[in-house]
């Protein structure tokens, strides 16, 4: 198990380094003259331009810039943001991360729980109306983009019925219930696509396991149905778990649009603003952080998979 873990860890670190380097050079190529953009509406003189450029360190050759940035990155220092009040990005992230994470993790939880329940129901009684309904709806839910779902939910549940706040994020320490209410709509909108994915995946795995030889042999030993069900779940779990890992990445992407729609100051909405204002340190920080989360989640899920499925360990 240890060798397996170390191997995954090394490839995760390699991925992070590759992404960090790749995005750095792509961003600098994408925004060749970031300084000009940062002056915003105020006109500026030549020497103000040079002063700003030096202040941001953009006058040095690209490689030294990269090395300085990378060195600081390792110590967790993302530098300061170029747009708005020049505060350290790490502080900004500290405010923004809990927002995005609350949505994404609640979305994952909703997805996993609902997906598992629907998947097991459909799996145990294949061909039942529940099963047919899930496979049919999987096509529709898969098709409809998340932001359309969120508009419908926002319109009905928030504006018309008022059960949920229309926008804004409430800090949990300030008002726990308010916090939960404020993140429910975006989380659910993101999760719906995933719920069906997991349900279908779990259902197929259960049906295959149910018709497998070893389950028939277990029944032939007289094992009660409940014990057999446990065996089914354990053999179906890996399929669902791999989907959760895939859905986590798309949740993060989905957050970019939903945070803007629900006016929540997460890393998603920050990405949209940063990319349009050419705020390079912020773009790099956001990319590195989101990929870090993806890598961490994949790593954890790999460990869980390895633990559940002994054969996967030697992969």
């Amino acid at each position, binding site marked *: 198990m240890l060798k397996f873990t170390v191997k995954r860890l090394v490839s995760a670190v390699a*991925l992070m380094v590759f*992404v960090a380097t790749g*995005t750095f050079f*792509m*961003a600098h190529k*994408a925004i060749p003259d970031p300084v000009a953009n940062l002056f915003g509406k105020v006109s500026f003189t030549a020497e103000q331009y040079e002063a700003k450029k030096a202040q941001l360190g953009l006058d040095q050759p690209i490689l030294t810039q990269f090395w300085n940035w990378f060195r600081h990155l390792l110590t967790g220092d993302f530098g300061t943001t170029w747009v708005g009040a020049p505060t350290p990005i790490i502080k900004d992230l500290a405010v923004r991360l809990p927002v995005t994470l609350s949505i994404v993790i609640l979305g994952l939880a909703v997805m996993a729980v609902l997906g598992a329940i629907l998947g097991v129901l459909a799996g145990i*009684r*294949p*061909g039942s109306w529940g099963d047919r309904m899930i496979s049919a709806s999987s*096509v*529709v839910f*898969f*098709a*409809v*983009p998340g*932001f*359309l779902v969120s*508009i419908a939910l926002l319109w009905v549940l928030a504006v018309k019925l008022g059960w949920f706040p229309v926008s804004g994020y409430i800090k949990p320490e300030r008002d726990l219930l308010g916090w939960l209410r404020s993140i429910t709509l975006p989380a659910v909108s993101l999760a719906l*696509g995933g719920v069906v*994915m997991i349900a*279908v*995946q779990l259902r*197929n795995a259960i049906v295959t396991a149910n*018709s*497998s*030889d*070893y*389950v*028939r*042999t277990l*029944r*032939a*030993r*007289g*094992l*009660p149905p409940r014990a057999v069900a446990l*065996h089914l779940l*354990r*053999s179906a779990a890996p*399929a669902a778990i*791999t*989907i959760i890992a*895939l859905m986590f*990445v*798309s949740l993060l*992407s989905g957050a*970019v*649009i939903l945070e803007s729609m629900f006016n929540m100051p997460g890393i998603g909405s920050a*990405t*949209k603003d940063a*990319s*349009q204002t*050419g705020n390079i340190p912020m773009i790099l920080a*956001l*990319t590195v952080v*989101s*990929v870090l989360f*993806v*890598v961490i989640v994949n790593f954890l899920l790999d460990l869980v998979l390895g633990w559940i499925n*002994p054969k996967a360990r030697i992969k």
Partner: protein
Amino acid sequence: MSETVALATAEVLPAVQPAEARPQNRSVAFRFLTQPGGWIPLLLVLAILVLAFGAPLWGLQDPMHIDPRVADQAPSADHWLGTDSTGRDLWSRLVWGGQDAFRGAAIVLVVALILGVPTGLIAGYHGGLADGLLGWVSDVLMSLPSIIILLIVAGLTHQNADVLMAAMGVFMAPGYFRLTRSSTIAVRAEPYIDAARVAGISHTRIVFVHIWRVIAAPIVIQTAMTIGVALGMQAGLQILGVGDSQAPSWGGMMSSAMGSLRTNAWLIVPPAAMLGLVIAAFAIMGARLGEITGNRSEKAKHLTRAEKAELAGAAAARAAEATQPNQDLMVAVKGLKVTYATAKARVEVVHGVDLAVRKGEVLGLVGESGSGKSQSIFALLGLLAGNGYAEAEAIWVDGQNVLTLPAAKRRALLGRTIGYVPQEPISNLDPMYTIGHQLVEPMRKVLGMGKAEARAYALELLARVGIEDPARVMGLHPHEVSGGMAQRVLIAGAVAGHPKVIVADEPTTALDVTVQAEVLELLRELQREQGMALVIVTHNFGVVADIADTVTVMKDGLVVESGAVGSIFAHAADPYTRELIEASSKTPSRAALDEGGVGAGAPAKGGV
């Protein structure tokens, strides 16, 4: 955003087993077009395509013309869908917008195909370093939240839509890479590829003829899904403000419609509905194609509870009058019928079979594949697959007619009165658990043993079935043991509950000859020691001669002959039985055949 979902489609759709992929491609298209789930969405998409790209022909109003006087009007005669907040005609913008949408999706598709498929072929076919490297790049792309990178790219290209869509195509390539690679690996393992290489066919021809024909269908399915996702993501980016806000595009229309969601909610309906419709159409087509070319056998129609109850009821009624068999029969089956319900029809595979085995004796149940021998014993055990059900006048086990028993009582027989030994050793052990756990669990839950007691008994049984180092084997997983050892473990499991009868379904067919002899000997010893009855299903008359007391020969779901071993071998009444015996008994040696010049066709007398 939903781009990684495209990657999941490879898993969601039934992984196509190339060897058995429906071959007649011609009829795949034919069957697709005759299904409503196929032609309706196809027609819809084609209509929208013709509408969009034929836009200039329909005499539409200029989609760009602004007329503040008619801003925000509801649908009317001269503006079929009404006008947007700048007074432009919504219907013409929706039609012209189609061009932008499909153009974008086409670029994404082309890039994803060009990057994904060849690399998948190379990685799948050659493996090694290429596979490792390309696999890693694909993992990297899949772990990047694509919206972030695309937003950066939008900055790079100053909103150039084509380059942006190409970048999105790069993010969709892993979907194709994974699918092509797994399909190629599956095909690569097939013998006909080796046969082709032996026939002197070059690698390139193998890839572009043999492999391509089989992976073409899954790629078409993936394409249907990818277009849907590409359209969705393109609109998502446009809503975030990427791209030209003036030119007609579905995403652009939605973006401006959202700005006035409160004042004129109608504005968002046409683009959202159209986008949802087109994506759903592609998704449905993909799913239908998946089903047609998938390896899913006839859609098994699982019997609902009602149907099973009704059948049980009928059986119980008939059982009441069935006569009591004579006492020394351990198992007696009267008039057994087994039927399988598929989507279209109900297929009967066992047409009224009588079986019997006396206490302490061995019944050899012989027949070729498709003779219904296995289905008969599964009917006896009550372990038929979901869509199968059995009817019989009576199934007596140890003096009880199991058909009259409630399900729970009948299940109680399994493991205590009836033991079961399966055919394929490795696939009958749960890969997720250790061998020890799979032995101990039934002991504790069925035989009510304590943890330590069960563990000790398991070790004792493993030793009894001839496993040298039982303690080590207890900790191993099924994939870590040989076929022979796995079969011994399964036999240990079968006898654990001191059953009165063992039902063995071709227990040695999957084993090597020398191991087969050992296992047969083990079965014989256990059977004698514990005075159990044994029903052994086989297609090999040698096994029957070796172990059976009585024989029943089955063919096409019927019993052709039944009797004591000696009489059957000496002078079998039925010609089919004789033919079976001849085929596996002593045959003339090749030398003898050559001398006699006898036609190889006619089987000469004598045997090995």
